[in-house]
């Protein structure tokens, strides 16, 4: 059957999509914590920077961010004499991480604020420094709260990787376009494509559920 010929190149693209999803989900988690914690920082500069970051990346379209990083940033770099020419993979992963990180930062902030005030008081009475309190007391309690939202964001991120095909990254959607360019067999190709993304999303959801259970083990005994 003709569709069998599509599978090999599509799998090649799917592998790029998987890598990109993993990298940018991890990167997104990093930015989530960086700016989520930054937003609650007593340091005013850190707070304003974080708010600015969150508003900009949540307030603009991912595709615009992607094009900007890919086409505009190198030119600006040239104008000021730095090489800001990110390879497509890096530009794609960075745009995805920043975008998902901005949404994640709000999740982190919400979960941190949900840690009961009393926990901070005990930590103080035991003489923990604010930094120790953050790392040892509040974050570990907040992380399980974040996990369901992070699960949704990870799937969102997987879907968003399709947009990097528009900056010539050989991901799943890009490969599909190439094949269609050649064969004009739209129905078959797009049907396979949708099913492949759906399958990947289901796997990702399952992984995030496992992760959720493992970080929240101490909550199991809760009444």
């Amino acid at each position, binding site marked *: 059957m003709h569709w069998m010929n599509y599978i090999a190149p599509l799998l090649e693209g799917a592998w790029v999509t998987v890598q990109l999803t993993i990298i940018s989900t991890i990167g997104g988690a990093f930015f989530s914590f960086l700016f989520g914690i930054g937003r609650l920082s007593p340091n005013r500069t850190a707070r304003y920077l974080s708010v600015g970051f969150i508003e900009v990346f949540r307030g*603009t379209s991912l595709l615009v961010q992607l094009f900007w990083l890919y086409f505009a940033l190198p030119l600006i770099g040239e104008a000021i004499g730095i090489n800001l020419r990110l390879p497509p993979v890096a530009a794609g992963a960075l745009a995805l991480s920043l975008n998902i990180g901005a949404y994640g930062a709000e999740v982190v902030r919400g979960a941190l604020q949900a840690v009961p005030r009393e926990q901070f008081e005990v930590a103080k009475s035991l003489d923990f420094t604010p930094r120790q309190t953050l790392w040892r007391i509040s974050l570990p309690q907040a992380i399980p709260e974040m996990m369901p939202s992070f699960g949704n964001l990870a799937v969102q991120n997987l879907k968003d990787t399709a947009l990097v095909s528009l900056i010539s990254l050989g991901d799943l959607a890009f490969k599909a376009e190439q094949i269609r360019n050649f064969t004009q067999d739209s129905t078959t190709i797009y049907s396979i494509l949708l099913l492949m993304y759906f399958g990947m999303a289901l796997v990702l959801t399952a992984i995030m559920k496992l992760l959720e259970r493992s970080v929240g083990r101490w909550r199991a005994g809760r009444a």
Partner: protein
Amino acid sequence: MLFGIEWNTSNDWLFAASILPILLRGLLVTIQATVVGFLVAAVLGLVLAALKAARSPLIAWPARALTEFLRDTPLLVQLFFLYYVLPEYGILLPAFLTGALALGVQYSAYMSEVYRAGLESVARGQTEAARALDLSPLRTFGVIILPQAVPRIIPALGNYLVSIMKDVPVLSVVSVLEMLKVAQIIGDRSFYYVIPLSMVGALYLVLTLIASAGVRYLDTRLPKRGLPLK
């Protein structure tokens, strides 16, 4: 020149000023696509929500699976699918409508969840009280449940309106002349990319900040207990 408007490349500021009206033409399309996409999503979402709530698992289960499928697959691919596959079956829509439909289809899945959550948040006691008074199921839904659910549903829908707006640039790939596409065309022709792309980013920021503020305002203005009935 685009839409009959010339640009001025003598310096950056004049260039920016001269392409602003062109970008605003694109912005108009962006807003149109947002509104049409939102309306489609609102209606389809309601249908999906109703199907999911159906007693028969033969209806509810496929509706749930469809919701999951729509939520888990990229807008871009759904758009391509509609744009290239629908015509093969004789359904020929202009690019703009196809794009708005794709937005609507994708977001209908999210909105169906909003409806469901909004309706379920109206306390069970309300349904029971209505039943104890023998109100018909239709009247219970229309006069007791819905007016109370609406103030909870609307702000959430508003947030999705903002999300839809941010997804409109994806329609540029099927050549809908929304803001990003316009910026790209300006770039292709003038060979200046930084300024149009940055302006699109800035316009988006302004737009979403305004829209989000609007949603928050609406949220504070809606009566929490439900639309009042005298």
